[in-house]
């Protein structure tokens, strides 16, 4: 009977854990977020008893708060060299931003485009703008109003990484969403 209860609890817990694992797309997401989202199960060291629980039903306000937290953590989209297409890797991040912006038509976002230090400053300004526009176009495709978005290209003028190595260049080729 106890075993049956445990089995039932597992049925609930496991899929939730699986869902939460899927939704954590990046390493930078902190444990704090995932622990509030998913249910917890703990094992008592001595007598082998385990407890299970389900995630609390979140109110819309709570959901919004969590989403907001997520947005603030993931606001950079990286690009390949001399490319301005949004990689599939960042689709989920942009979807989160897009949902939020569609739900909140009063919120405005600034999309900054950046380039690495290769090439000329002027060409990189053009490239940075193209990247920012690619992000704007993606969001617009989700229903975000053009009036909610503004674009600025800083080209190679505001690098995030100053090492001028391939890894550094990769970090500098980015679009940044600033609320």
């Amino acid at each position, binding site marked *: 009977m106890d075993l049956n209860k445990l089995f039932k609890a597992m049925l609930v817990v496991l899929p939730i854990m699986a869902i939460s694992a899927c939704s954590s797309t990046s390493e930078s997401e902190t444990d704090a977020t995932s622990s509030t989202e998913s249910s917890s199960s703990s094992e008592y060291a001595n007598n082998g008893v385990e407890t299970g629980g389900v995630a609390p039903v979140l109110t819309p306000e709570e959901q919004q708060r969590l989403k907001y937290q997520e947005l603030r953590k993931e606001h950079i989209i990286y690009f390949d060299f001399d490319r301005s297409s949004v990689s599939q890797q960042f689709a989920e991040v942009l979807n989160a931003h897009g949902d939020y912006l569609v739900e909140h038509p009063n919120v405005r976002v600034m999309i900054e485009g950046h380039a690495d230090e*290769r090439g000329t400053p002027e060409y990189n300004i053009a490239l940075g703008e193209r990247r920012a526009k690619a992000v704007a176009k993606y969001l617009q495709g989700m229903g975000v109003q053009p009036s909610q978005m503004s674009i*600025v290209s800083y080209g190679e*003028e*505001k690098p995030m990484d100053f090492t001028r190595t391939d890894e550094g260049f990769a970090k500098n080729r980015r679009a940044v969403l600033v609320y």
Partner: protein
Amino acid sequence: MKIFGKWLLAGLLICSMPAKAALDIVITEGVDAARPIAVIPFVWQGTGPMPSQISDVVMSDLARSGTFSPADELSLPQRNISSVAQFNADAWMAQPAEAVVMGSIKPYPGDKYLVSFELIDLVKAQLQSDTASKQDLVIDSRETVISAAQFRQYGHRISDVVYEKLTGIRGAFLTRIAYVVVNHSEKSPYKLMIADYDGYNEQMLLRSPEPLMSPSWSPDGQRLAYVSFENRKAEVYVQNIYTQQRTKVTSFDGINGAPVFSPDGKKLALTLSKDGQPEVYVVDIATKAIKRVTNHYAIDTEPSWFPDGKSLLITSERGGRPQLYRVYLDSGKISRLTFEGEWNLGGSITPDGRSIIFVNRTNGKFNIARMDLETRFMQVLTSTRLDESPSVAPNGTMVIYGTTYQGKQVLAAVSMDGRFKARLPVGQGEVKSPSWSPFL
């Protein structure tokens, strides 16, 4: 021990004196090919210490030109002479130099100084045995009254005369450079600076917490056009370097970039992306009227005027990758100029209109290159890393550009034939976007 202490103190004083040159030039290549010349330290004919040694400026200028290699002062057979009358040709027979520069400085009423100099043809002196006609050896001689503040300036003037007399090319020593210094550890990291071409007399024209880009000189050398992000967007300004007066020229949505003055100084060619893609426009500075020059869905940017003001050199991506094109303002006709290498961009035309200087990318490396417009022969001039923003000296002999050295952005110079190379290291921050002024 007492004497040692005094020397130590003297040494410390010298070491602790602030370096006057903000950009100290280090010649990295090309001294061997330079022509030997002798510069005798100018003779001070006043009492007390000499205010400033003007011949030091001349020696540095000539060495930095890459064309001349001034002989070591100690190797000169005659010193402490200031005119051809004191010149003893016999003593100079074994000297390898082709010419001798000498002169004097003496106090002049009203806190001024009388500077005189003579340029002597040493080759002629070594060939002719008759020393009676000494005056024939003088290629040029001048006398000027200057103030204490004008020593460096007049030194450059002497260098200009010497350079022009010996090469037939006008000297570009009395010129300035504008550039951007970025120090990310400061609260307001972006600074627009100007300095003498050799880095002396550095002055800040503008400081901003947001990026400053693309300074470019007006043909009269009195104004600079540049891009400022001070209002969280790109805007093109023109600023008078003497009065500090600033005028906002364009502030459209999107890119407002790469401004360059037309040869008559009345217009700017620049890049705007207000209608979608970056396109090249010409704006009238006084009326702000704009005229679109290019029309293509690919990137068009980095305009530079041909000397006649009728066409522009631009970077366009219309062929798939950035390459240089020439576009005519009246007809809009456009033709591609560069085909060699993966990318060619950031071009400008030499003052004689015969060659273009640009950034070439070959095998992923970015270097400064020159192409002859008639023969289409392309030569890569530099071997430094991540080269960008080349700017040609007004006499067409040298290119100053931005590069990377030991992980920092610095300025460097290369002669038009690629043989002479120099680096301009700096103390704090990154130095970029150099622009060489016209003749002043």
